[in-house]
């Protein structure tokens, strides 16, 4: 019994040691390629296996029968042999499967020499990676094949689009952005020519990838980048009917060309080149501006007054208020000891305002009351309806928008009030708010599913995949959407937005818009503007955020670039 337990225990210990050896790989172990932990685990496994094999087998034979003794000794010897080769098999399993991928990454010796698997370089760098094109078929990311060596270099065509393309660094850092999401298509592992490419890669011939065509409008993209200038922030411009992304820029950003390895260069430059790229990579990672963050989809910002659109939609959808219902606003509102000042009233002597006017002039006191009226649970429900706490189905990595940081936050009245006018613990992405604007502009209460890749084509031009516009969510009733739409138009014509030229008169479009100025502490603000513009059968939605600016009012910093961009877009519509 004891022996059996000891044997089971030893086997268990061996299994644990194996699991640790295979899967416990802290960063410094992977980076330094040290195997001490693994070798130690192997030692433990070996000893434990010997215990399993030896314990309880015939006690050391006292018999004088030489045959019996020989048999016994040979048995022990065989178990030693088998344990040795089991360890060998485990070592092989680890080297050939478990850590095989890690071994193929580049390594720098203490003398700063580059060590890299010569095979991998060849295989990865001869892949004729697919083109990425903008909506007019201009090449955004292309390739250049060296005639003799067949090695392929990634080239870039339009600096304004680069960040969402992502970096391509198969030998060093992997890929990001579209290069990562569509890697299988771009390399050719997926798609119409997958079988052919698999064959070619088996035969070590260059493989050819599929091409992506984006929905990005290069002119709008360039204009958006230009209007954002050096300011930190993001702009997202959507075709609100289909969900196609026409422009998407974020600041600060980076140029993937800086991280692209050029294999067409001379061999003896490779080590230096890799080192230079490594340095630029480390610099990008240390940059306090976080240029590697794709702000339009991953940047989380307090939405400020633009969020009032969701509070308003919730209150109307629940039937708690009507556009002409009146509210009291005495310049400040106090609940549970928290006082919210209201600096936005156009006429400080007037204390009664309608719901529509409250939205037009962004009256915090009234939206605080509206937040209370809607209540914590319903606020959360409508935020979820609009896509908060969900990963937006999109072609780039997404940060989920958040209704609160601490669970239970919205059970407090002060929290409900401050969330009502867009502060609280709210955090949201520019893409999320652009989708909110699109939903209101559409009149059917539906939120489109955004997309960036229009189609995927094989090298011969055959279409592999064509994106069809889809509805993602239905946050509110269509009649609610139409009411909110009217109120947004009123805001853009008669409210603060309208008084600053937000109606885009002369463009021939109907426009609805809302600014936001979110307090983020430290005397700086996030300036926001969301809007939609409808002309003919076209509908556009836009969200602009300029973050952490002193005096970062939506009207002053976020609305002007949005208006410029919308004007340019509307001019293209007959």
């Amino acid at each position, binding site marked *: 019994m004891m022996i059996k337990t000891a044997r089971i225990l030893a086997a268990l210990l061996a299994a644990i040691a194996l699991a640790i050896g295979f899967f416990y790989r802290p960063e410094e172990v992977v980076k330094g390629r040290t*195997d001490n932990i693994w070798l130690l685990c192997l030692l433990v496994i070996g000893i434990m296996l010997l215990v399993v094999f030896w314990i309880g087998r015939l006690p050391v034979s006292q018999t004088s029968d030489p045959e019996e*003794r020989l048999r016994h000794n040979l048995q022990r010897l065989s178990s030693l042999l088998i344990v040795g080769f089991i360890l*060998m098999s485990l070592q092989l399993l680890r080297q050939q499967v478990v850590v095989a991928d890690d071994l193929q990454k580049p390594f720098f010796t203490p003398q700063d020499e580059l060590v890299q698997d010569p*095979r991998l370089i060849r295989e990865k760098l001869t892949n004729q990676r697919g083109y990425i094109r903008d909506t007019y078929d201009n090449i955004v990311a292309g390739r250049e094949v060296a005639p003799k060596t067949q090695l392929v270099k990634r080239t870039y065509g339009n600096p304004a689009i680069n960040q969402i393309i992502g970096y391509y660094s198969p030998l060093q850092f992997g890929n990001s952005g579209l290069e990562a999401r569509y890697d299988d298509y771009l390399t050719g592992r997926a798609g119409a020519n997958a079988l052919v490419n698999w064959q070619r890669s088996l035969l070590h011939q260059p493989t050819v990838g599929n091409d992506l065509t984006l929905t990005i409008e290069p002119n709008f993209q360039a204009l958006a980048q230009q209007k954002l200038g050096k300011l930190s922030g993001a702009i997202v411009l959507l075709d609100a009917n289909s969900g196609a992304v026409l422009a998407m820029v974020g600041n600060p950003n980076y140029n993937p060309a800086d991280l692209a390895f050029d294999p067409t260069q001379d061999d003896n430059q490779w080590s230096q080149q890799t080192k230079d790229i490594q340095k630029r990579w480390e610099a990008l990672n240390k940059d306090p501006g976080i240029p590697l963050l794709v702000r339009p989809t991953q940047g989380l910002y307090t939405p400020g007054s633009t969020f009032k659109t969701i509070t308003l939609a919730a209150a109307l959808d629940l039937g708690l208020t009507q556009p002409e219902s009146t509210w009291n606003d005495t310049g400040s509102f106090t609940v549970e000891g928290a006082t919210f000042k209201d600096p936005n009233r156009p006429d400080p002597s007037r204390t009664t305002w309608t719901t529509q006017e409250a939205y037009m002039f962004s009256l915090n006191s009234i939206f605080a009351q509206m937040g209370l009226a809607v209540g914590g649970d319903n606020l959360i429900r409508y935020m979820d309806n609009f896509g908060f706490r969900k990963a937006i189905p999109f072609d780039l990595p997404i940060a989920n928008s958040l209704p609160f940081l601490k669970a239970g936050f919205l059970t407090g009245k002060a929290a409900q009030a401050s969330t009502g006018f867009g502060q609280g613990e709210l955090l949201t992405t520019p893409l999320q708010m652009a989708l909110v604007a699109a939903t209101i502009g559409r009149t059917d209460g539906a939120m489109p599913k955004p997309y960036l890749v229009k189609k995927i084509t094989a090298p011969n031009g055959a279409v592999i995949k064509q994106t069809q516009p889809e509805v993602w969510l239905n946050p509110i009733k269509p009649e609610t959407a139409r009411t909110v739409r009217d109120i947004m138009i009123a805001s853009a014509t008669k409210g603060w937005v309208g008084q600053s030229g937000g109606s885009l008169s002369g463009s021939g479009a109907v426009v609805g818009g809302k600014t936001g100025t979110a307090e983020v502490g430290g005397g700086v603000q996030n300036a926001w503007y969301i809007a939609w513009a409808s002309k003919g059968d076209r509908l556009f939605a836009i969200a602009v955020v300029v973050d952490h600016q002193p005096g970062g009012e939506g009207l002053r910093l976020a609305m002007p670039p949005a208006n410029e961009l919308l004007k340019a877009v509307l001019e293209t519509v007959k």
Partner: protein
Amino acid sequence: MQKLKNLRLIEMQLLIVPALLALVGMLLVILVPRQQVQWEAKDLWTSFVFIGLLIGTHLALTLGLPKADQLLLPLVSALTVFGLIMSQRLQTDGGSRDGIASKQLLWIGLGYLVFVITALGLRNLLLFKRYKYTFMLVGLVLTAAAAVFGTEINGARLWFRLGAFNFQPGELLKICLVIFLAGYLDENRLLISPQRGRGFFNLPPLPYLGPMVAIWGISMVLLFVQKDLGPAELFFGVFLIMLYVASGRASYVIAGLLVFAVSSVIAYNAFDYVQNRITAWINPWPYAQGRSYQIVQALFSFANGGIFGQGLSSGAPYFIPEVHTDYVYAAIGEEVGLAGTLGIIGLNLLLFYRGFHVALKTSNGFYQYLAIGLVALLGLQTFIIMGGVTKLIPLTGMTLPFISYGGSSILINFFIAGLLVRISASD
């Protein structure tokens, strides 16, 4: 019926596997570089010669030793065919490896000849026992002569150059050692029966202490001369294994291991080359462009193999220097993957167990020890070189039995296989 029993049908059926491997493997290795499916029968001449060798050996055994073990020849042939295919595959990358396939085939042919002669010709193995001291002496003298007069290859003076071929007497010394130990332990069997003094740290009786010290001394000399841990490990390991099997005393083994450990520590502190091997084992990466270039390239090779490998002739094992001798296992790992490396481990284990089986079946004490010693020799050498190239243990230069390219190694291993077959036929 009696006639049919003498036909060795099991062996015949099993030999189909290495024969097919030779045809298919060779075809792949020849066709892939050509990139087209087009060949003539004469392209496969090495395979046909190899199959001829299999048939010839099989017939010789059927006629001469019908009762001998039927699994040893197929197992040895399956391992050998890997060596043949890999030498053909690795010579296509040209350079210094040009023409190694036909040379390897020549050695394999001679190997099968040695195999048949040993199995059929050595009618009275007990002569070995009688002349055990002579064997030991001859082995030592040859090795010493090589160390003094031999040609220096890769920094070690262990070779005689005979025309185009190099001969390594160290390979012969291994066999001499096993023959000597088998005879010696069998002779002193009664002295070392377990009934004698059972204290744990009792000094072993003189008949054990004597050879123990002597062989330890030989191992140390080898360590100095060959500048390598491998032969020392092999010799001392085989000695300890045979000692254990004969005496059943773990304490002797532990004492022996302690002695070996202490001398290893001294060697580690005294010699740079031992230190280099150890540091390269613990972490070769910092020296990957220098002294551990070879092992790092081998690790890349294994990593590229994955589970099923790149396919014969489709990998790039030629990045490893000297891949066809010590590192042939890495080339197999890359092109046939984990499936291939584990398969070779399996074949080897089957071979070892068959060897133990032979030892248990015979009733002669000398034969038992001889068979166990020979298997220990094969097993330990396989483990040391496989473990070395997979970075399981510190690397030491050695050939992979039956697979690595190399003349003396092939001949000696076939000699060992022949002895095992011979023993299996004795009652």
